[in-house]
């Protein structure tokens, strides 16, 4: 068990998840857990390269917070994100990146607790893992 304080990068969809998160109490808790946010207009906008870059640049974990299936403002963006998530998770695993470091969460607009639970679980898992062993220059 390390004392490592993980840095989590969250790609936050601007529709449902943002609505769930844009409350002062939620934002504060998230920040405490080491979350940095990047707002996107759709989880489908998140290119796997962003995830790779985040992990390579010092993020201990990356979370994509997406609208639940059927609720995407752009119809299929979130399911595309889901497909990319699965394939990327497989590649990351082969490169030595632990499963806990990358996560996709469906966050309905009225269920902030789901978001917080995901962050919490992720932070605890990452604290146990310690810093990433792979990344730019770490081999």
């Amino acid at each position, binding site marked *: 068990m390390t004392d490592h304080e993980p840095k989590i990068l969250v790609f936050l969809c601007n529709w449902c998840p943002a609505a769930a998160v844009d409350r002062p109490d939620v934002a504060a808790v998230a920040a405490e857990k080491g979350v940095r946010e990047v707002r996107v207009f759709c989880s489908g906008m998140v*290119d*796997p*390269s962003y*995830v*790779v*870059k985040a*992990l*390579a640049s010092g993020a201990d974990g990356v979370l994509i917070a997406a609208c639940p*299936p059927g609720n995407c403002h752009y119809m*299929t963006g979130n*399911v*595309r994100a*889901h*497909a*990319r998530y*699965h*394939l*990327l998770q*497989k*590649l*990351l695993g*082969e*490169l*030595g*990146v632990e499963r806990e470091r990358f996560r996709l969460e469906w966050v309905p607009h009225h269920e902030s607790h789901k978001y917080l639970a995901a962050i919490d679980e992720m932070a605890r898992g990452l604290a146990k893992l310690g810093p990433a*062993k*792979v*990344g*730019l*220059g*770490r*081999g």
Partner: protein
Amino acid sequence: MAKKRIAVFTATGCRVCESVLLDLHYTVNPLTRWADIVFWPYVSGNSRDELEKLDGVDVCFFAGAVRTEADRRAASKLREKSEIVTALGACAAFGGMPGLANLGMVEGEEKEESSPLSSDSFPPPLPGREPCVRALPQVVETDYFIAGCPPTPPLTWAAVQSLLGGEDRQNILAFATSRLPGNVAEAVASGALPPRGTVFAGEKAVCASCSRIKEKKRFKELRKSRDRDADPSRCLLEQGVFCQGIVTREGCGGLCTAAGVPCRGCFGKAEAVYDPGARMVSAVASTFETLDPLEVEKIVGDFDDLAGTLYRYTLPSQCVLRCPPPLEGREGATCKP
């Protein structure tokens, strides 16, 4: 005009890249028209210790990945002695297939070591293996890159002409300029060297030169050996064959796809790509025909060895997550080009 002095050397790799140069010498135009070959161990029999006494080399063609400490020393010495260092072939440019050895190394795990012999023992000790495989630019500043495994004769010849020059440059340069991207061609045509860091290849993806017809971008399911052959006239990726042309730099003319096999990326990533593996994941996953999550999971389950396939030739220098620790003096060069 004085002849350029050139050196040709392979670190850890096959001899095919050197043979491409030798072949050009005999079948196109003798290199000796423009150059004196001052160091070419494979063909002329020069030995490693001659590197120390070597006077200025104008252009060095360096092939092979940097695997052993002897490779690293040779790379440093050749860099010191050469005005221009050109990475010849995928091993030197990106790490090549020897780079796959790095996949087995997580957490600085050391492989079994050789040469525990003392320095005055006989046989003399072997050059030790470095902890990881590196591409040439990760060891020394590299000026130009000729990609490919092996590099194709037309692009290699274009590079040779633009780097070696010669009195009758103008006539011969027209060929070089026809093969290269605009800004590089302009530099070459005006008699200047192309910008340092140029890869002698195109900028777009292989799809631009592939002869197959591309219709609908849809990935249904992974095609397996027990399926009948893909249609030779249509895009392989659309038929479920994992082809990396979409993220790979063009220049080969679509050799592999024309021969009925998918591209495996030996020219390295295309100009606009950040990480070829991530980009390929995006290209394939974004075009899955099904949107049903369970079916998506099933298709993903069919893929094997994504890492070894997507980074077949480029793991050391283009896989962002697995770049080796930078060497002293090369801190800026974790992932290039």
